[in-house]
Each structure stands twice: as C-alpha cells, then as structure tokens.
C-alpha cells in the first residue's frame, strides 16, 4: 500500500515535471502564432492584402517560417482557398501577402485566417503548426439600397483567352434582374441573396473600347454595367535586325505585331526597349517598329541587342548579335556624271558617302536602252567610281543606274541611283534604201524616187534632209542637186530620154550617209509589153513569189508592189534581194483580203540598171464578187432570148472572176440541156448553167416555149464563191405569130395615119372642092329690106332694088396675084375664079362709134370668132376694085383698119358668143338712096344695123351651109 502511495507520488511528480516542461514548450509554440492580422482590399486588382507579424521569435533572430492561409467566402466555414507562404521572418517584422480574388470582392464578404510554423530543419521542435489566427472579415464598403444594382468589376483588364468573373449585387429579387454580355442574354450563379456571379471563360478580343456587361431590373429603369477589357496577347517582335549606313548610327527595325493598346487609358500600346549587353546600355524606342542606336566613338565591333516588347501582361524579346561591318547598308550613290568621249564611248562616274577608309564597296552598274539591260558591270571602289561604256549607238538615250554594297561582307545593296544620258549624233552609217518607178511620157521619163527612212541604228541622229544628185550620163558635165527636207520619202523627176545616174544620200547634223545609186537608162527598162502577167495565190503569211534565175550580170533583184491607200494612192513597197535568190515570201501587215496586188520583179544589172523580169498579180485572199452583172435581154423570140453583160468589170472585183453562173427558174421545173438542176433549202428549184470563161459575157437561152415566163439571174464567181444574190428578172417569150401581126398592123396604122394627116393638111382644099359654104337666102337682109318697103311682090326681087354689097369679078384674065394676109396660102390660079369680096369700111376705130358702118361681107363667113385670123385674114386682092377705090387710101391701110376694127368688135363680144360663127349682112343706111351710093360715102353718123343671120358652132359649120354659100355666091 505504501509502495503504491510512493509510486503514486512519484508519478505525480513526474507528471508535474512533464507538465511544466510541456508548459514551457507550449509557451514557445504560442508565440509563433501570427498576430495583428489585418486584411485590406484593392479593387483594381481584386486583391486581399494581408499584413501580420510574429511578435517574438524564440531563440533566434531570424527564422524561416511557413504560413498557411485560409480564405472563406460569404461565411467562414465556406473555405474557398487554402495556401502556403514561406518566408524568412525577422524579429518584429510585419509580413505582407496578397491574394487575388477571381470574384470581385464587392460581391461577397471574405474571411481570412492564418497559421504558421517554423520551416527550418535546425529547429524541428518548432515545426508544429501554430494556432489559427482569428477570422478576419473583409467587406468592401458600398451602400446597397433597396433599388440598387451594382455590377463588378469595373474596368477589368484581362488577356485574350483568359477567364473573368463578373458579378452584381442588388437588393432586388434576382428573378427580376436580367444581364447581358453586349447584346446577349447571360445567366449566372447566385452567390447569396444579394449577389450573382458570371464566369466567362476564354474571353475573346472584340474591340479596343472594351466589352460591355450590363444588367437591368425588369420593368424599371434601373440599369448597371461594367466594361472589361481584353488585351491581345503580346507577340514577339519579328524580323529584328540592325544596320548602319554611315557608321554613326545603327538603325534597328522589326515587325511589331498586333497592337495591344486599349482605349480609355486602360492599357497603352506595348513599349519597346533596346538593350545592348556589351555596353550595358538601354534605350526606350520612340517608334513601335524602329529604333536608332548611336554608335559611340570607341568603335565597338560586335553588338548584342535584345529588343523587349512589354505590356501590362507580359514581355517578349528578340535578340541579335552581329559585327558592325557585316551590317553595312550603303546609301545610294550620288554625283553621277557622264563624260562623252565620242559618238559611242561614254565615261560614267559616281560617288558614295564615306564609310571609312577601310571599307571597300562593290558597285553594280547597269546600262539600259529601250527598257532592256544592255550592259552590266561590277566595280570595286571606296569613294569614287568610274566606268567606261563602249559600243553605244550614237544619238541614243540610255539609262544608267548604280548601286553599291559592302564588297567583303555583303549585307544589302543600296538603293539604285538612276541617271539618263544621250550619246551624241554621228553621220548616217548606211545608204538609204531607194527604189523608183519610171513612166515614159511625151518623149520624157517621169522618174519617181522612193526611199525608206533610215533605221535609228543607221541614222545616227535626226535626218534633216536628203540630197538627190541627178547626173546625165550622156552629158557628164551636167548634174543637178536637189535637197529634199526630211521627213519626205520621195520625189519626182522629169528627165529626157538620156541615161541618168541618180545619187541619193541622207544627211543629219553631223554628216552624210553613203549614197544609193540608181541608173535610169534611155529605154526606162520597163518592158511591160514584153512581160506577161502571171496570177499568183496569196497565203495567210503573204505572197510566195518566185522567178526564173537570170544568167549574166544580175547583181540583185527587186520586187516591188503597191499598197493601195484609201485615196487609191500607190504606196510603193519594195524588197531587195540577193543575186542568187529566185524566190521570196512577200509578207506585210497591210495585205488585205480582196485587194489585188501587182508584183513586179526587176533584175539589177552590174551597171545598176533595173529591168523588168516578171509581173505577177494576186490576192492575199480572194473574196466573192461584190456585185453581179447587170444583164440586158436581146433577141427575144418565142423560142429563145440572149443575155448580155458587156459592161460588167471583172478587174474591180475582190478576186479573179473565173466565170459566170446563169440561174434560170422555169415553171415547168425542168431544166434545159446543159443546165444543172439545183434544189435549194427552201425547196425552190433552179437550173444552173456555168460559164467557165470570164471573157464570155453573152449567153443565149434556147428551146423555150412560146408565151412562157422565165426568170433568170446571172452572177459571177471567184475562187471564194459566187457574187451576191440578186433578184431574178422575168422574161416572157412572145407568141410565134405575133411578129406576123406586127408586120400587118404596123403598115396599116401608118397608112391610116398618113391619110388622116393628108386630109387634115388639105382640108381647106377639100372643103372648097367638095362642099363649099352656101348662104341661106331666106335669112338675107335684102329680104328684110324688101319687106320693109311693103312690096306686095315679095317673092320678086328686082336687081335694081339691090344694093350690091359685093362685086364678084369672074374670069378676070389678068390681075396681080397676091397673097392672103399673114399665114394664108398663096392664091393659086384656080382660086382666081373664086368670088372676090371687097369690103368698104368707114374710118371709125370703134364699132361703137356712130360712124359709117357699111361693110361688104362674105355671106359664107363661118369661121369661129375665136380664130382671130379668120377675120383679119380676109381674102382681099391687092388690086384695086373697079368701084369704091377712091374710098381706100391704100390696100394696106384698108387691111389694117379692117383688122383693127374687127378685133375691137371681138373684144366687146360676150365670152360665150365667141365660139359662135356670125353671118351678117349690112343694110342700106338710107332706103332709096341707092343711086348715090357709088359716089357718096356713107353718112358717118348713121350706122346700119347688123342683124344676126345665124349662129353655127364650128363643128356644125357643115356642108349644107357651105353649099349654100357657094350657091349664094353664084346667085349674087
């Protein structure tokens, strides 16, 4: 029992000792617990910033410690993150640590606590976790009213492809809040009753002005939002290189890649920094793609550059190391000069900017003419370069360009320096190519000279004029010089029939070309009448022309031809060929289809005399005739007719006329012998006859049916085809007896016509002979005169009672034959027997005058009053009548007076009466005064009355009247 008591006391003491020790150890352990923990927030980085200290470090001044943090959200028990932080802690040191929250701190309350332990192997006894500090609550202050809606974070900057969490806090029911990412509805996670969060993963870059996230409370105007910015990922600078042009400055360039700058000053564009490791110098670059680095005086040969691009998220670098002399990019050469040493050689000189005496440059020189590189040279130099260009063409513009590079360590060529220069002129180097045409006219030769302009290669300058020297070979002392100014290409000379030698030279400002010589012989050498025309066929590439080789002294051949212009002017072309040539392909871009070309082949003798060898003509391509012949019909009979087209010109067609085709369209649809039946696509049938001879321009169609219609059409044809389609001409063959009818009817018609004409011409004669006018005695005025005397013997007329108004002279053996007035026929012998009437008229001028109106008138007067000549042309013999002669001063006066009065009386007639014939008689002015009539003239103031006897239309002035007239005349 005592043992048990002792043992119990011993155990108790031991426990107490252990307990004491343990208390001491525990006291040291407690002292490592973090104290004075303070937590603050940084909204910009969404960070919780912790600050604490370890008040006493046991045994040590410094101790490496490990801290463990726990972060809870919303409530302490909701631990969202646990992490360690290791650091060496000094006595009384205030420790700092930061934690970035994914969720904006404004949207939730956070709690933080911390514990620690020693992390030093020397003090394993201290490697026991201390107690946790008390929870520190972190709450970002914001006033949250009942209608408040706040979105966080503000102006958050993230890198493209990263994640961002956006949240809102509100005192409003979450169900009433709708949120949008730009214009898309988005749903989040509710954190608590006031907050919701939206996690966006792998966010893209949309625009520099940021991406808008906003929420609105439905049915209200309450809105809130936030803009977050997405930066593009910074790229590494590409193509980083440095070079110098003057050994004073290094210019470094690179391709910067995308600009990561953002609006609203959220992130500037990335910056670039150049660092040279050997010198340790650093330089911020002003430009985003280049930087100039000053080369120090103590020549540093090797450079090690690091280019660093940086933005808020990252840095990207590029590095190069190089020897300075290997990075020489010379500036473009300057002071390029050209020294003309003659017509063809030119000395080119240039300079380069100084690059130090130790550097040799290699320069590349190019000479270009007409856009093509003619010469290429390489020249080594230091400062001044020279190069001689040879074999240049006079009067030619060249372009020379030069560039240089480091000869030993090639890096880059400089820019080209380009200069143009022109070589001076020289005398033309070749005689002009000359040809001629000779025409003999009026015992003289018209010589037309043609020459081709010298090529630029041979002209050696601008041709100013051509000298033409005409030398008479028969009179060597006489020669003429003609200076023809350029750009003339020919001239015309009129020479007599002597032999001439013509020298043609081209001249520029420097000198004269060699002369072309042409001999014009006495006989002109054309011999056109001796040479036959030969037809040739052109091909696509021209005319192949061959000729017989000439034995003897031919030194060359010339083929000439005309290229017709629009104005039909002959643009003479020629081709000179060697003496051994017997053929040539004459090609020209101007050959046109359908145009006939005439080629003359001349041989040139050793005496330079040209004589015509052959004459060929052809078309480069024949065309069908332009028009068809105009056909005339001849010899039309009932069985045949002939067609002729003599005027058709075969020479003016665009091809050789090979013949003609006659198309005949018969209604019988059967072709005549020799015709070929042709059925066209429209089922029309023609008979075709081909005339092979182009000279035959007549064709007779025979074996036709009388009184039948035939349609024909004639066209010509060439190797290219027939002429254009024309209209068919219709021919109708006559009846077989129709010619007989014509033979009978025609003479008959002619006979009738002749008879009618004869009758017409002799109508007066016939009338007088066959049916003369007979007056009507019952209508005589004498009868009325008798009545007025109331003579009971009315039917007996005493001759003495009559006052003769006409005297008929019968069988007067002699007398002067005269003519009727004006157009009347001469009075014939037979007509003398006719009654001759003598008219006795007063001198009054007007019929209305009350003068004497005694008139002896022919009763047979029945001419139409409209026939003015009928009255005027009264048959009055020019001989004086036996009585009343004294009344008439002269026959002419009498006739004139008569005509005048009669015309006056006509003028007073009504128009409708002018077509009538008047037959009137004159009554005695005073009855019973008949005795005094022969001696006494009529009383002027007393006019006898005219009485209308009858009015007869001219057409009815017919036989009875005439017969009566004749009878009456006889009675009187």
């Amino acid at each position, binding site marked *: 029992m005592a043992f048990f008591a002792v043992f119990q006391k011993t155990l108790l003491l031991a426990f107490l000792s252990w307990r004491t020790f343990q208390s001491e150890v525990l006291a040291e352990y407690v002292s490592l617990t973090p104290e004075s923990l303070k937590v603050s927030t940084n909204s910009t980085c969404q960070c919780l910033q912790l600050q604490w200290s370890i008040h006493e470090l046991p045994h040590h001044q410094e101790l490496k410690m490990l801290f463990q943090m726990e972060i809870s959200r919303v409530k302490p028990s909701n631990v969202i993150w646990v992490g360690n932080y290791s650091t060496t802690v000094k006595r009384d040191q205030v420790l700092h640590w930061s934690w970035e929250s994914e969720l904006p701190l404004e949207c939730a309350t956070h709690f933080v606590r911390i514990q620690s332990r020693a992390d030093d192997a020397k003090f394993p006894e201290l490697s026991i976790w201390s107690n946790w500090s008390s929870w520190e609550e972190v709450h970002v202050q914001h006033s949250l009213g009942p209608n408040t809606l706040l979105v966080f974070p503000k*102006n958050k900057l993230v890198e493209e492809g990263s994640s961002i969490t956006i949240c809102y806090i509100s005192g409003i029911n979450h169900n009433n809040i709708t949120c949008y990412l730009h214009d898309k509805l988005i749903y989040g996670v509710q954190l608590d009753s006031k907050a919701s969060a939206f996690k966006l993963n792998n966010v893209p870059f949309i625009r520099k002005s940021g991406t*808008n996230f906003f929420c609105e409370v439905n049915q209200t105007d309450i*809105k809130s939002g936030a803009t977050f910015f997405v930066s593009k990922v910074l790229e590494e600078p590409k193509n980083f290189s440095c070079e110098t042009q003057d050994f004073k400055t290094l210019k470094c360039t690179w391709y910067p890649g995308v600009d990561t*700058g953002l609006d*609203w*000053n959220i992130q500037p564009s990335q910056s670039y920094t150049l660092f040279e490791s050997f010198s340790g110098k650093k330089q911020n670059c002003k430009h985003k793609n280049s930087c100039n680095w000053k080369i120090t005086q103590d020549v540093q040969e090797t450079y090690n550059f690091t280019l660093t691009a940086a933005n808020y998220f990252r840095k990207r670098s590029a590095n190069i190391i190089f020897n300075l002399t290997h990075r020489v990019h010379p500036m473009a050469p300057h002071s390029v000069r050209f020294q003309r040493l003659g017509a063809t050689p030119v000395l080119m000189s240039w300079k380069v900017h100084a690059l130090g005496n130790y550097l040799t440059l290699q320069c590349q020189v190019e000479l270009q003419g007409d856009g093509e590189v003619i010469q290429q040279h390489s020249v080594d130099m230091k400062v001044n370069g020279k190069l001689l260009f040879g074999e240049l063409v006079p009067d030619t513009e060249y372009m020379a360009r030069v560039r240089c590079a480091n000869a030993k360590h090639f890096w880059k060529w400089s820019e080209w320096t380009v200069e143009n220069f022109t070589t001076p002129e020289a005398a033309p180097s070749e005689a002009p190519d000359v040809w001629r045409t000779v025409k003999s006219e009026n015992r003289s030769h018209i010589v037309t000279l043609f020459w081709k302009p010298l090529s630029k290669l041979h002209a050696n300058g601008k041709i100013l004029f051509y000298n033409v020297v005409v030398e008479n070979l028969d009179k060597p002392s006489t020669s003429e010089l003609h200076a023809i100014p350029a750009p003339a290409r020919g001239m015309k000379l009129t020479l007599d029939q002597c032999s001439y030698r013509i020298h043609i030279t081209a001249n520029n400002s420097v000198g004269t070309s060699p002369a072309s010589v042409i001999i014009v012989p006495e006989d002109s050498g054309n011999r056109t009448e001796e040479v036959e025309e030969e037809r040739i066929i052109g091909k696509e590439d021209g005319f192949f022309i061959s000729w017989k080789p000439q034995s003897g002294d031919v030194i060359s051949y010339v083929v000439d031809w005309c290229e017709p212009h629009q104005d039909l002017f002959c643009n003479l072309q020629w081709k000179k060929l060697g003496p051994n040539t017997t053929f040539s392909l004459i090609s020209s871009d101007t050959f046109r289809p359908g145009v006939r070309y005439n080629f003359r082949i001349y041989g040139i003798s050793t005496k330079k005399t040209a004589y015509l060898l052959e004459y060929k003509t052809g078309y480069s391509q024949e065309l069908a005739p332009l028009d068809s012949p105009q056909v005339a019909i001849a010899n039309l009979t009932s069985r045949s007719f002939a067609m002729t087209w003599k005027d058709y010109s075969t020479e003016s067609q665009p091809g050789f006329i090979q013949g003609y085709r006659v198309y005949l369209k018969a209604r019988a649809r059967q072709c005549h012998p020799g015709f070929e039946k042709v059925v066209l696509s429209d089922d029309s049938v023609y008979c075709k006859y081909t005339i092979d001879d182009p000279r035959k321009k007549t064709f007779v169609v025979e074996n036709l049916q009388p009184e039948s219609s035939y349609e024909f059409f004639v066209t010509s044809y060439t190797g290219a085809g027939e002429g254009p389609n024309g209209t068919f001409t219709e021919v109708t063959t006559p009846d077989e007896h129709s010619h007989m009818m014509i033979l009978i009817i025609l003479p008959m018609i002619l006979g009738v016509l002749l008879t009618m004409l004869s009758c017409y011409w002799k109508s007066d004669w016939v009338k007088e002979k066959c049916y003369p006018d007979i007056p009507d005695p019952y209508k005589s005025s004498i009868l009325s005169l008798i009545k007025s005397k109331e003579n009971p013997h009315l039917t007996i007329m005493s001759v003495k009672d009559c006052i003769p108004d006409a005297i008929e002279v019968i069988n007067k053996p002699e007398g002067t034959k005269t003519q009727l007035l004006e157009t009347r026929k001469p009075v014939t012998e037979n007509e003398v027997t006719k009654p001759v009437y003598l008219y006795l008229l007063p001198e009054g001028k007007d019929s209305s005058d009350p003068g004497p109106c005694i008139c002896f008138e022919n009763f047979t007067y029945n001419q139409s009053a409209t026939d003015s000549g009928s009255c005027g042309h009264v048959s009055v013999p020019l001989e004086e009548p036996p009585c009343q002669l004294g009344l008439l001063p002269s026959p002419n006066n009498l006739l004139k007076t008569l005509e005048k009065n009669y015309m006056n009386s006509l003028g007073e007639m009504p128009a409708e009466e002018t077509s009538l014939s008047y037959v009137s008689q004159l009554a005695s002015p005073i009855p019973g005064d008949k005795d005094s009539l022969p001696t006494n003239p009529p009383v002027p103031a007393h006019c006898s009355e005219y009485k209308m006897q009858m009015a007869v239309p001219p057409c009815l002035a017919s036989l009875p009247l005439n017969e009566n007239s004749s009878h009456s005349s006889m009675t009187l």
Partner: protein
Amino acid sequence: MRARLTRRTLFSLVLGLLLLSTAAAMRGCMGPYQHLLSQLQRQAHLTEDTSSLLEPYIHLQGLNTPILRGSCTEHPGAFPSKDALRGLSKRSFLRTVNATLDRVLKGLVALQKQLLNNDLKELETARQNIQGIRNNIHCMSWLLGGSSETAEPMQTGPGSWLQLTSTLDVFQAKLEGCRFLRGYHRFMGSVGWVFREWGESPSRSRRHSPRWALHKGVRRTRLFRRGKRPVPRGQLPW
C-alpha cells in the same frame, strides 16, 4: 519720368496691337448677314445629324444595343432647351451658343483623349465644325453690334457635362459620353431652329436689325479698312 514714358509707350503699343488683331479678325466677317445666317443654318443642320458623331461613337463603344441606346438619353439641363433658346434675344442667344459650344469643344477633347490612336475620326471633324460655327457666331455677333463673349451666357445645370477622370467607371463614362453627344446634337438642332426663325421672321429680324443694314453704303468703304477697327454707327436696343 522716363520710365513712365516707356510704360505709356508700351501700353499704347499693346493696345494698338490688340486693335490691329481685332480688326484683322473682323476682316474675315465680310459676308453679308443673310449669307452668314444661311451658313449658320446649314452648319447647325449638319451638326444636328447624329450620324455625324453620335452613331459612330455608339458603334465604336459597343453601345449599339436597344437597352444601352435607351440609356443614352440627354441629361436634363445639360444643354439649353429649344424653348429657352427661342426666348433669348439674338445677342444672348449667340453668347449662349458660343459658350455652350466652347464647353462642347472641351468635352470632345476630353473624349478624344480617351481613345487610342484617334479611332473616332468624326470627333476631329466635329471639332472643326464647331470651331467654324463659333467663328460664324463671332461674325454674326459683330454684325449685330455686339460681342459673343462679353456677356455671361445662359447657365446650364451643374455636373451635367462630360467629366472623365482617371478613376472613372468606363461603362458609365461611355454612357456619359453618349448622353453628352446626344445632348450636343439636340442642342444644335435647337440652334438651327432658332437660326431658321431668324430667317423666317421679319419682325424679329427688324427688332434686331443687323448692323450692315444700317450702314449699307458705309460698310464697304470704311468698315474693313486696313488697320481700323470697324466701328458700329448705330446701336439697336437689345
């Protein structure tokens, strides 16, 4: 004594230079009243169009959604209303427009600074247009016998202008910029309205007859003589 003389000379020189510069500035105001008024009307009409600035801004800032467009409303009182402008005398109207545009210019400059690489070219165009309008207002004020800068313009509500600070909420700043520009366009529309009223209302015009109308014959011969400030010959009651 000599120092006083020197000071007087210097003062005279400065005054002379000021007058000369003013006269030089006035030489640009040679257009007739109607032409100037017509130009102002056209300028107002041009700047009233939201497609000249607001719409590009909305698209650039990603505000082209119905909800955000709905939020882009003019701050009440930020710019003088049409009725307020119509109630002003011509001179007060010109002063108010001039002062408002001055502040608009400042706002545009502030906005321009927020944008990298001058992305919104229309901002620069708008600035130039406003500068042109202000010049014409200056000339119009002179023609009407006053200055556009001497009197206080009409006051607008406090805090209604675009203020972009370093700690701004970009989302809010975007909307503020949008509201500011909308107000600017609306204001220019109201200004154009008033200018059109000037052209259409003879009675109103008679009340504020332009200076040139009083001195038709004098204007060309004396008003713009080199080195002389154009002196108004008649002053109408305002």
